């Protein structure tokens, strides 16, 4: 559903930005309040509830035993699925994932996969036959802007919180030992940092109000070392080379700051 933003709000937000200010009083490079809890769903093998401002996502993981892909016989599988629930915003609709939901799934998945957050090779049980498949489900319950940073932060937390049984092979049978649970092997804590461009200015962690009037968006996934593992531009306005290089260098600091919220 197209949501038309009244001209007057557009103007007032833009004017504030021109003066170096934001509607909620934040600095251009300042995140909203962040809260992150883990282990919130007992039936999920790993879970987290993340809030950035009023944006809120509940995330759960479900490891299952499955068959590896033919071209990667000794590598586990990570499946990311995002639901932009109709409860999260008046213009979200029930039904199969739309393009925004698909983009959020794919960018989150890309940041975690390319950032090598989970050591997928350790999830192989029997090469070519059985591996752990980890389903990562994101349930977006309240939408107030900047879903991507919340999605990646919460997903990394839920993965870190995930436990799987130890496995042994005995007499050609896989034995799952639920008395000895082990954490999912975590390699890395890659996180994502998103900027919005409004009237030529780049501001971090856009609120919904800011997203609705922004011209472009740039999300940058970064590893602990500060390497870039994922990027995604959005929005129908262009960015120039200098803007891109500038936000990349800010992102290094800001993802480090985000990382302090992880347990």
């Amino acid at each position, binding site marked *: 559903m197209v949501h038309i933003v009244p001209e007057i709000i557009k103007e007032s937000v833009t004017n504030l930005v021109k003066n170096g200010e934001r509607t909620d009083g934040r600095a251009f490079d300042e995140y909203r309040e962040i809260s992150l809890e883990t282990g919130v*769903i*007992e*039936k*999920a093998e790993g*879970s987290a509830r993340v809030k950035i401002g*009023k944006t*809120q996502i*509940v995330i*759960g*993981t*479900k490891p*299952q*035993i499955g068959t590896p892909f033919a071209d990667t016989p000794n590598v586990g599988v990570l499946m990311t*699925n995002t*639901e932009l*629930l*109709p*409860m*999260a*915003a*008046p213009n979200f609709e*029930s039904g*199969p994932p739309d393009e925004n939901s698909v983009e959020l799934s794919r960018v989150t998945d890309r940041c975690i996969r390319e950032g090598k957050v989970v050591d997928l090779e350790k999830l192989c049980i*029997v090469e070519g*036959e*059985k591996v752990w498949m980890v*389903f990562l*489900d994101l*349930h977006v*319950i*309240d*939408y*107030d802007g900047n879903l991507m940073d919340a999605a990646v932060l919460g997903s990394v937390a839920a993965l870190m919180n995930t436990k799987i*049984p130890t496995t042994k092979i005995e007499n*050609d*049978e*896989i*034995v*799952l*030992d*639920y*008395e000895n649970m082990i954490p999912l092997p975590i390699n890395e804590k890659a996180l994502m940092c998103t900027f919005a461009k409004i009237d030529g200015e780049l501001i971090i962690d856009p609120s919904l109000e800011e997203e609705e009037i922004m011209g472009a968006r740039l999300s940058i996934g970064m590893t602990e070392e500060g390497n870039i593992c994922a990027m995604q531009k959005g929005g129908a306005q262009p960015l120039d080379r200098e803007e891109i290089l500038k936000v990349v260098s800010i992102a290094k600091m800001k993802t480090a700051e985000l990382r302090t919220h992880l347990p």
Partner: protein
Amino acid sequence: MIIIITNTNLNTGTETSARADKRAFDELRNLKIEAGVLERADGSAYLEMGGNKVLAAVYGPRELFVRRLMQPNRAVLRCKYNMAPFSVDDRKRPGPDRRSVEISKITSDALSPAVFLEKFPRSTIDVYIEVLEAEGGTRCAGITAASVALADAGIPMRDMVVACAAGKSDGNVVLDLSEVEDKEGEADLPIAMMPRTGEITLLQMDGDLTEEEFGKALDLAIGGCKKINEEQKKAIKNRYGE
């Protein structure tokens, strides 16, 4: 290749007390309700009951874009009941299944009698119920939470709607079946009611009950509803004061 699972925690049945979780036959599970937990929705509520964790959100009254559903003299109340993929032991595939379609329909019927729908012709009131974690009795939990969310949204109502199940487990008629009691028990009877008049707005049963047991279970469920309604009122009071 065969997969063997050792040492799971599913040791039910060796209990000595009458109910696996030691509750009295007419005792509810621990209950917690909070109103106004979401920002964007017009109204919302969060409910925990035993191991159930349920969110409800309300949008409306608002314009109904699907013309063929429009009612000239009243609002339609539409419900979507949905389970999160991680809410159950084996991951649930996203999207509606036959069970959730049926529960959505009867939830809508259960809430409608309490709402002054005639005040909002041609519009819709949308109720979304998300089960974040399921441990038996989620449809009742969803209705109870949705009613609080409707109140939080300021929708004018004749009464609250409150839901609770009774049933039969190990030969006894008991209140508020847990997941294990629901699966292994002999009967389940979820109801919803408007506590002021005692009118029943939802009634389902499956299992095996004599007429006498049914009467007993019905009264037990009605009693459960009344207790839960106190928690609904508290949740609204906590949010808005007296």
